[in-house]
């Protein structure tokens, strides 16, 4: 069993499934389920492709970090497909390629291969958003994504001209031994901007409003939960293992990220539509994830991504199904939604309270430890920002929840099918479970921190 199968089998299934259009949703379900199962049998190793070892060939890296990332992304992908594939059959081949692309992003150890797989999963994302039936929003997403990838490639080529290699581990060893920090600041800034477009960081996220504000049951969870988690993991791998920051560059990047968080929370506070509230909260959470990785806390960054992805999956799935049925997503139209759907309401409440960071939920454990580690390093500005934005988040989520549980006449009638209820309940229970019984989370996070710092550039 080799991890290359995680990329090769979905690709093969995609190439074959265009001939058997009727059977393609079942092939998709089977392959995505298989990729979750196969993760249990993979040994942790570096896999060489083609017989030429790195840095002269391409290698895939399967260490503890990528194994957790693969588990999270593949499981959430399978859950979304299980719920939404009944309605969107035409798009199954695209979803198979998206699965291969996402696995490729998380596994690869070579910077140009990362660019190719980001393009593969990016184009799959553009096609998934065409189910929104808003071609102008998809076009904006396409232009923004292509410009971002081009900037990333420009930064990568400048680094190649300076150091002569494309492999991640080799590049970080060369940078560390050459001692140049100011000269590499400019290419790093370009690469950061390129990845930041996809991760919805501030000046480059104009596409996010068009796509997620009109999303449906497949697009919303996929882009906001699965893709956001994958890009977050890529940021974590690059920021902690490859990049080296001079102080000025670190300052610029921290300013960009803090501006993202503040703007995201402010716009969510001011919005009156459920999907818009959720999407601005997503933007702020992406900024928070990158901030944590910039400060160097790998383990807790990973768990922030996990908590965030699971929570946003629940929130988007419930909100999108309701807005599909009701035709609108104004908060006024949703008033009293949960009175007749108590189970769904409880899951939504759990997910939003975890996002704020209240005790008893996974979000609380993650935020407490992050704040503790930040205070220990002596920094006071960043914890202050995190606390203030958490309070703002708490206000608007609680306001939303109160409106949705409010009992009055003319309650909106929305039916939720069984599979969706089952999935969101299981995820909500897991969030609560790990919030209360948090010892395994803490040991794993410290484990990842130790392993990554010790190995440094020799992934």
């Amino acid at each position, binding site marked *: 069993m*080799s991890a*290359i199968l995680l990329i*090769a089998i979905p*690709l*093969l299934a*995609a*190439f*074959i499934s*265009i*001939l058997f259009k009727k059977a393609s949703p079942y092939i998709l379900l089977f392959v995505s389920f298989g990729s979750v199962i196969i993760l249990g049998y993979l040994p942790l190793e570096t*896999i*060489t*492709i*083609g*017989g*030429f*070892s790195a*840095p*002269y*060939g*391409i290698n895939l890296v399967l260490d503890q970090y990528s194994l957790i990332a693969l588990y999270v992304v593949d499981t959430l992908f399978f859950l979304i497909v299980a719920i939404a594939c009944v309605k969107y059959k*035409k*798009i199954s*081949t*695209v979803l198979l*390629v998206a699965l*291969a*692309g996402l696995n*490729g992003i998380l596994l690869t150890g070579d910077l*140009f*291969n990362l660019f*190719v*797989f980001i*393009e*593969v999963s990016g*184009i*799959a994302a*553009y*096609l998934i958003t*065409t189910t929104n039936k808003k071609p102008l929003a998809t076009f904006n997403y396409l232009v923004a994504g292509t410009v971002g990838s081009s900037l990333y490639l420009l930064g990568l080529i*400048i680094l*190649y*001209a*300076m*150091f*002569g*290699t*494309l492999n991640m581990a080799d590049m970080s060893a060369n940078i560390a031994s*050459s001692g*140049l920090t100011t*000269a590499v600041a*400019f290419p790093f800034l370009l690469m950061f901007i390129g990845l930041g477009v996809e991760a919805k960081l501030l000046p480059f996220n104009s596409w996010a409003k068009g796509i997620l504000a009109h999303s449906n049951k497949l697009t919303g969870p996929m882009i906001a939960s699965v893709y956001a988690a994958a890009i977050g993991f890529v940021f974590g791998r690059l920021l902690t293992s490859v990049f080296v920051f001079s102080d000025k560059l670190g300052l610029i990047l921290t300013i960009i990220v803090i501006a993202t968080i503040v703007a995201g929370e402010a716009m969510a506070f001011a919005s009156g539509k459920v999907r818009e509230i959720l999407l601005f909260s997503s933007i702020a959470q992406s900024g928070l994830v990158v901030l944590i990785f910039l400060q160097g806390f790998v383990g807790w960054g990973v768990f922030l991504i996990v908590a965030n992805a699971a929570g946003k999956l629940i929130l988007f799935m419930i909100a999108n199904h309701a807005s599909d049925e009701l035709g609108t997503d104004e908060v006024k139209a949703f008033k009293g939604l949960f009175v007749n759907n108590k189970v769904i309401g409880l899951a939504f409440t759990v997910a939003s309270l975890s996002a704020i960071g209240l005790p008893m939920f996974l979000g609380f454990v993650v935020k407490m430890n992050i704040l503790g580690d930040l205070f220990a390093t002596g920094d006071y500005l960043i914890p202050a920002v995190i606390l203030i934005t958490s309070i703002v988040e708490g206000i608007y989520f609680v306001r939303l929840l109160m409106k949705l549980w409010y009992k009055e006449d003319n309650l909106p009638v929305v039916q939720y099918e069984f599979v969706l209820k089952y999935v969101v309940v299981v995820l909500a229970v897991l969030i609560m479970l790990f919030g209360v019984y948090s010892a395994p989370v803490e040991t794993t996070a410290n484990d990842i921190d130790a392993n990554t710092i010790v190995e440094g550039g020799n992934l």
Partner: protein
Amino acid sequence: MKNFLALVFTLFLGFMIITALSNNEAFPKYGEADVSTRVSQKYLDRSVNGNPGEIIFREATNLESGPANTVTAIVADYRSFDTLGEVTVLFISSLGVALLLGSTKQRRMELDFHPNFMLKVGSRALFGIILMTGIYISIHGHLTPGGGFPGGTMIASSMLLLYLADDEFRAKIKGFKILESAAGSAYVIIGLLGLLIGSYFLENLLNNGVLGYLFSAGMIPIIYVLIGLKVGSEISGVIDNFLTEESV
């Protein structure tokens, strides 16, 4: 006002890029790149897994990577995983165009002008020549510049010539889809065979022969022919999708 701000921004950004590159002591000036410090030196000498000594055209046998064209050796042998990703990008783009523009009953798009008889007949003669050129470039990818991607594009442009010269022509799309699917699956299956029989995914299993002959370089001509067919059929499918519309 907005145009002026955009102009100032792009001028500033260009100026910043140029000064950052000229102040960068590790970035070599144009024309002074030192290939021996880069990874490419081992690609040129074919010495990644052991040193074969000096390589002479038409005399060196069974090198670790057989093509005489070093760029082909990189694209199809050393870094063939990137080529697999690239093939997937084209596949999903043509699939996306078919999803966006496709419909069930189709006929050629109505245009204002109609090509005349001489154009229709003359283009058929030219079609064969362009097709032959495309196949030649695709097969000789390991000896001359080119390879599967330009070859496939030439094959597709011969189809485009037929579409433009005759406003009632439609190719057999079903055949293209089968060809595309078969070629793509064959590429992944070759890779998986490398994993099962050899020990690495996409390993070159056949003998690499003598450098410079047509039958050399192991599996690379086969891979390039598959890629040429795939690219040709995909782009022809895209052309067909753009030039048809729903029939009433």
